[in-house]
């Protein structure tokens, strides 16, 4: 028995090593892509999100009606009304059309703050992590202060004080998401900073800027990016929530959160029409969440 298993185990070990070498020679991103391809959940989410994006971009071509044009005689029609497949809202505007157009603002308000926070947070986080010392202490203590607010409360407080409007909501949300990104960026940078190849680069005379640009950024951007994608879902929920409170977009602009808010009065008349915009928010948010989980696994990011 032992005579037959021993070579097989060694062979298996060799095969594993060969496969690892093959994967390594393909490069990191090829490996990531290969792993994503084998993950059906991530693929399905990516396809749904792409379809939604396409539907929003081509909204003027596929939407059956004008998103602002209402009609007093066709108010609050149920789902399945001829010519209005998803019914009409409290001003007689076509729901399907407004959902298609509404995604543009909802996605914009969900993604822009995270993208801005990613850029700003990475800058300060890498700075704090690489520089260490006093600079690290100042940046991290300021971060602690904003961490002391629950995220929804901070977003409501800032945009509530500044007043309603898309710019104010985006500003508030960006401020909410900078501290968590700084924390992640700082901790991964500290992990990379003390590795041998960074020491070697420094010893060979590379300046701080070069070391960060060439050796540090390549190793920290991945984990920070994965973390940032996991924030898009939260950001979209809070952004639509701000509009739901009347703090984000202003009527008559179509936006999912604001649509939920104005349709709330119709909840006793056309309950199922009234909850439709929320279905869109939910679908987007869950897809972004699962996509981020899939990316995290494929890119082998811990935490």
């Amino acid at each position, binding site marked *: 028995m032992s005579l037959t298993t021993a070579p097989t185990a060694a062979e298996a070990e060799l095969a594993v090593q060969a496969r690892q070498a093959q994967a390594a020679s393909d490069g990191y991103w090829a490996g990531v892509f290969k792993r994503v391809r084998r993950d059906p959940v991530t693929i399905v989410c990516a396809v749904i999100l792409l379809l939604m994006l396409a539907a929003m971009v081509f909204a003027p071509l596929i939407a059956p009606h004008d998103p602002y044009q209402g009609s007093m005689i066709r108010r609050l029609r149920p789902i399945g009304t001829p010519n209005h497949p998803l019914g009409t809202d409290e001003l007689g505007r076509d729901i399907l059309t407004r959902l298609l157009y509404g995604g543009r603002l909802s996605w914009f308000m969900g993604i822009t703050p995270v993208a801005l926070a990613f850029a700003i947070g990475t800058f300060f986080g890498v700075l704090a992590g690489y520089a260490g010392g006093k600079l690290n202490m100042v940046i991290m*203590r300021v971060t*602690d*202060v*904003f961490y*002391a*607010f*629950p*995220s*929804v*409360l901070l977003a*409501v*407080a*800032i945009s*509530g*004080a*500044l*007043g309603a409007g898309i710019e104010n909501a985006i500003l508030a949300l960006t401020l909410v998401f900078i501290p968590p990104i700084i924390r992640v960026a700082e901790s991964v940078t500290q992990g990379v900073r003390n590795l041998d190849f960074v020491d070697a680069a420094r010893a060979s005379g590379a300046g701080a800027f070069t070391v960060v640009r060439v050796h540090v950024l390549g190793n920290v951007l991945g984990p920070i990016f994965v973390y940032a994608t996991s924030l898009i*879902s939260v950001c979209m*929920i809070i952004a*639509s*929530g701000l509009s*739901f*409170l*009347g*703090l984000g977009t202003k009527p008559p602009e179509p936006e999912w*959160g604001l649509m*939920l808010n104005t349709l*709330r009065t119709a*909840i*006793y008349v056309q*309950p*199922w029409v*009234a*909850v439709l*915009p*929320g*279905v869109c*928010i*939910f679908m987007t*948010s*869950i897809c*972004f*969440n*699962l996509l981020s*989980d899939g990316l995290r696994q494929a890119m082998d990011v811990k935490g």
Partner: protein
Amino acid sequence: MLYYLLRRILYAIPIALAVGFVCFMLVQIAPGDPINAIVPPDAPADVVEQVRRDYGLDKPLPVQFGLWLLKVVQGDLGRSLATGRPVWADLSTGIANTLMLALCASLLGFTLGCILGGLAGTFRGSVLDRVAVGTAVAGVSVPHYWLGMVMVVIFSVQLNWLPAMGAGPGGSADWSWDWEHVKHLILPAVTLSVIPMGIVTRTVRGIVAEIMNQEFITALRGKGLTRWGVFLHVVKNAAPNALAVMGLQLGYLMGGSILVETVFSWPGTGLLLNSAIFQRDLPVLQGTILVLAMFFVALNLIVDLMQTALDPRIKRA
């Protein structure tokens, strides 16, 4: 240990001060002169000047902050512009209502999350695990204000089982433990509980799976301990982290319940904030945010200390 306790409490003081400063700045960043937050817009110019001097608004910003802080520490959060009453008067009932809603939602979310997460962590890779993970992802991804609306549609509009609004019969804001009041609590509490449910499920699943992989569990099984006995060991090891996550979630719910409170017209801090935003009643906005944020700071401190006390492996000096 005692040294750590003292240091941790001392560290919370600058954080609390800085949080106070952020709340103070809220009125400063608001568009327009902060004086407009105190006097009605149609006040004559000399009255405006008088008020400006009375409130110290002609002094430099750091001095203003000091004066403001002095008042806040004495419990004076200013007066509401809309009602003219002290902010604290309305805020205290609001806090009580929000705290009760958040406590009920946390307990519910924590219980469900522990059950789901515990089962998923024990039977990793099973169908049960997948269902639990799916529920958790849905729980953290759902816009809870929308979930609240769906609940109202199902249980209030279609089935007519539970009331859709308020905290008691006739819109009363006072609480008592009878069915008429509890009935009003069910929908908002269930709605608010989905977020902690999702987060606790994820956390507990991770902790339990990690503990189950450790050698001492195998050893316990090997010496013939019953399932129940092993279970108790797992609970003891998982409790500190799970409780810490839950403690912070309670804080997030206190601050984040504004959306759910708006859906259900729950008379808490969220509804107070909502009306303050629309009437541009900045003193109420500032006071409410300040009290909620301070609550969160205190909770953070308590959770940290509790975790240290519960888990002897955490040695902090």
